[in-house]
């Protein structure tokens, strides 16, 4: 049961953060909309859905969604959602080491506070 929960949680967190990191890489590659107007945003979306990283991210996010459904059938929601808040820390590690973002001390402290805060709010 414990091992099953940990494997499910790992699939949930790695799926969601991996998917979002892949989508971030794709969106950076297709370049931002020239203006924040409907036509320019639609042109941006058309470029985005032709990018391979976008289609790498979507199945990973789907995997994360199915892992969430499985976890919710194994454990109470008041345990699953707070535990999933760990994705803020895992996502920041991914941003630093995979996307080469410069994560300053202030940003790290902020991310950890957000992670604990979301866990507390979700626990009710």
């Amino acid at each position, binding site marked *: 049961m414990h091992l099953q929960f940990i494997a499910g949680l790992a699939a949930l967190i790695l799926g969601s953060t991996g998917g*979002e*990191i892949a*989508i*971030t890489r794709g*969106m*950076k*590659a*297709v*370049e*931002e*909309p020239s203006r*924040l107007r409907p036509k320019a*945003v639609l042109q*941006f*979306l058309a470029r*985005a859905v032709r990018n391979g990283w976008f289609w790498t991210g979507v199945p990973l996010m789907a995997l994360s969604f199915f892992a969430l459904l499985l976890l919710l059938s194994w454990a109470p929601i008041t345990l699953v959602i707070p535990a999933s808040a760990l994705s*803020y820390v895992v*996502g*920041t590690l*991914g*941003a*630093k080491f995979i*996307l*080469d*973002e*410069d*994560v*300053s001390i*202030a*940003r790290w*402290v*902020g*991310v*950890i*506070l*957000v*992670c*604990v*805060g*979301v*866990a*507390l*709010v*979700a*626990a*009710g």
Partner: protein
Amino acid sequence: MPSEKRLRIKTLVMVFAMIVCANAGDLLLKYGMVQVGTVELTAHGLSQAFWQTVTSPVIWLAIFFLSGFMVSYMTVLSWADYSYVMPAGAFGYAALTFLAVVFLHEPVSPRRWVGVVLICVGVLLVGQTRPRTTEVPSEAAA
């Protein structure tokens, strides 16, 4: 307007759009599914629930807002750091708690208030860092 200030303003506007769309979408989805009622896990129950779901204007409105969330998320990630946008988006949890207190008069536990304070402080800390720390392709090519 200096480009750094412009970048910060448009990032905050898109993060705000993300939060509004995600919260509105989730609340409408919940409201729509409550209208559909408890789904019976039989072939008849599932097909009935399916038709009630796809013909519900509230569910379509929820899908519209959730699509808006995805579009604003993808758009902001085209220029801002993932490690900036992701924690900033968590402000939605804090906002939902305020809305639940103001409009639904829901009781909120002290533990949840501590969580809200931590999220607000965390988002403020992340918010004062630079929204983008990586090169964009056009700058790299220049």
